[in-house]
């Protein structure tokens, strides 16, 4: 049901003072556009398990696709904090919408920009920035999730072209993507980036159904059956597992901001509801147990905001480490999940309905805590970083 989006962003520590005027303008413009165009329809699309394709053009216009890509390739040339703020605003409305933009920006445009040839950059980036082209990223396989290095998808050199075979799973945007950045092993067991284009013979991308999470985003498989890949469709700039992992670093960084958006939306709704809902002749916000929940929520949101802002500053300086990104992603999703649940409690029975966003955020976050490195893997990355001992195997 379309209703007015009353969201007011909490900023308990005046973190806005740490932002530049342009960062705030980017964020506020995205917020205003999302309130007007996406908030009124998101519940409907979530329920019918459909990505609202009509918002793609608008997402491109607010800079949701590759905002940090240089202007010469159609991007906005923004900094990493602006990118984070955009992800925050998108996920404030819905993690599925943010996921679509994350994939396009960090998993498709980022590798083409960083590792692509000049021709590849010119061919794909400007169209990806506007949304004329949509992209997806194929790393995860049915049998290789947390251990992507074990992948079996492969390319074979056939002289003037490669042949691609294998399958990828849990791929956001796959069914409607015009280009897929696919990671596959060559004969020497080196992981290479392959640009697979819609319509190539032997390439299909069936949609996966039955998700209780990220329902407003489309997920599919990528199936490659002797797909003939022109040699110019290989990313020349980098190979090895480090290449896809660097893309994940960028996406995870955006997710650490995105989760704050989901948390803020739940907190904002709970705060408003608790001041209006009367029980025992007073608003439920007057009760200590409600105040405890709300106070803990705003405390965790504030800590998450500071973590993300600092990480963004480090990224702007080129100093953020993979382990630092893992900590922010892990922490911010965890607090968002807890806040969604507590906020749902404050809304009582109303909290389980689609009148309020908590259940949708809660279900979405179950994906967010799993994809781009699971919660446990991120903990082990921190563990490895502080002990120098990997606990993966």
């Amino acid at each position, binding site marked *: 049901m379309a209703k007015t989006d009353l969201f007011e962003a909490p900023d308990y520590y005046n973190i806005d003072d740490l932002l530049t*005027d342009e960062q705030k*303008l*980017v964020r506020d413009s995205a917020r205003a556009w999302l309130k007007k165009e996406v908030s009124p329809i998101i519940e409907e699309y979530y329920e019918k398990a459909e990505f609202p394709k009509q918002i793609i053009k608008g997402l491109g216009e*607010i*800079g949701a696709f590759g905002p940090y890509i240089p202007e010469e390739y159609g991007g*906005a040339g923004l900094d990493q904090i602006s990118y984070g703020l955009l992800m925050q605003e998108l996920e404030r409305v819905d993690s599925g919408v943010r996921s679509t933009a994350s994939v396009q920006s960090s998993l498709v445009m980022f590798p083409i920009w960083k590792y692509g040839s000049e021709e590849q950059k010119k061919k794909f980036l400007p169209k990806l920035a506007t949304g004329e082209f949509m992209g997806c990223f194929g790393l995860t396989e049915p049998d290789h999730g947390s251990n992507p290095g074990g992948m079996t998808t492969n390319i074979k050199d056939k002289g003037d072209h490669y042949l691609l075979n294998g399958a990828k799973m849990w791929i956001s945007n796959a069914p409607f993507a015009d280009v897929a950045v696919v990671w596959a092993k060559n004969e020497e067991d080196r992981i290479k980036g392959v640009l697979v284009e819609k319509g190539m013979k032997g390439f299909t991308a069936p949609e996966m159904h039955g998700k209780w999470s990220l329902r407003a985003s489309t997920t599919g498989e990528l199936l490659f059956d002797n797909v003939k890949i022109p040699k110019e469709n290989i990313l020349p700039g980098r190979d090895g597992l480090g290449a896809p992992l660097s893309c994940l670093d960028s996406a995870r960084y955006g997710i650490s901001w995105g989760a704050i958006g989901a948390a803020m939306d739940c907190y904002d709704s709970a705060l408003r509801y608790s001041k209006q809902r009367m029980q025992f002749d007073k608003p439920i916000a007057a009760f200590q147990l409600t105040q405890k929940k709300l106070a803990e929520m705003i405390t965790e949101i504030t800590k998450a905001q500071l973590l993300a802002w600092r990480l963004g500053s480090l990224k702007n300086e080129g100093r953020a480490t993979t382990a630092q990104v893992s900590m922010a992603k892990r922490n911010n999703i965890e607090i968002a999940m807890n806040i969604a649940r507590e906020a749902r409690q404050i809304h009582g029975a109303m909290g389980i309905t689609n009148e309020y966003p908590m259940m949708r955020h809660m279900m979405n976050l179950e994906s967010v805590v799993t994809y781009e490195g699971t919660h446990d893997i991120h903990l082990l990355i921190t563990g490895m970083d502080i002990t120098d001992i990997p606990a993966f195997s």
Partner: protein
Amino acid sequence: MKFLVCISKVPDTTSKIGFTDNNSKFNEAGVQFIVNPYDEWYALVRALELKEANGGSVTIITVGEQSDEPVMRKALAIGADEAVRINAKSDDSFFIAKQIAEYAKNNSFDVVLCGKETINFNSAQVPATIAELLDMPLVSLATKLDINGNTATLERDVQGGSEVVEVQTPFVLSAAKGMAEQRIPNMKGIMMARSKPLNVVEPVSVEAHTEILSYELPSGKTECKYVEADKMDELIELLHNEAKVI
């Protein structure tokens, strides 16, 4: 056609309002500022629409300090061509109108557009004062604006209906709700705004006509009393003795 749009910085409508210095100054701590909605949504956007349809230029002008520049940059991101900041801080309507009129006089604009009022001070004096100082006609509270050659046709809401007014350029107008639809800046606009000129001009010497001595918040909402529909005597008694309004 050259448009001049007057832009004011105002607190966001969700801001918590408070005062400092013995209630003589507005407390800006933690307050988010926006472009005055009447200036942005109606005056600026309509000027942009007319420029896009018929050509010309849109200049925005603000009397304010450097801290006003973020809202000016937003107006540029929405589509204005250039910005002028008269480098002065004042809450006095005459002072502000005089500064704008001086700039307008020296740069000959065809239409000067203002919002009908700012949402913080609501004095609604600036548009009329600019018109008087420029010796131009004023169309106040306009809800529609069309321009054909040198003739502008405007609509105004009046009691029970609307009034259509025709005026020759140059003129001044104050814009009310309905003149245009809000435009949200897009990324292209934000990027273009980076390099658009924002010129700072020193103010002319003017003495303010008013001084704000103090502010106070409206008293809080009082309890609502319900009176049974058939107890009119009780209602009259309450209105007379308690509310003291009749």
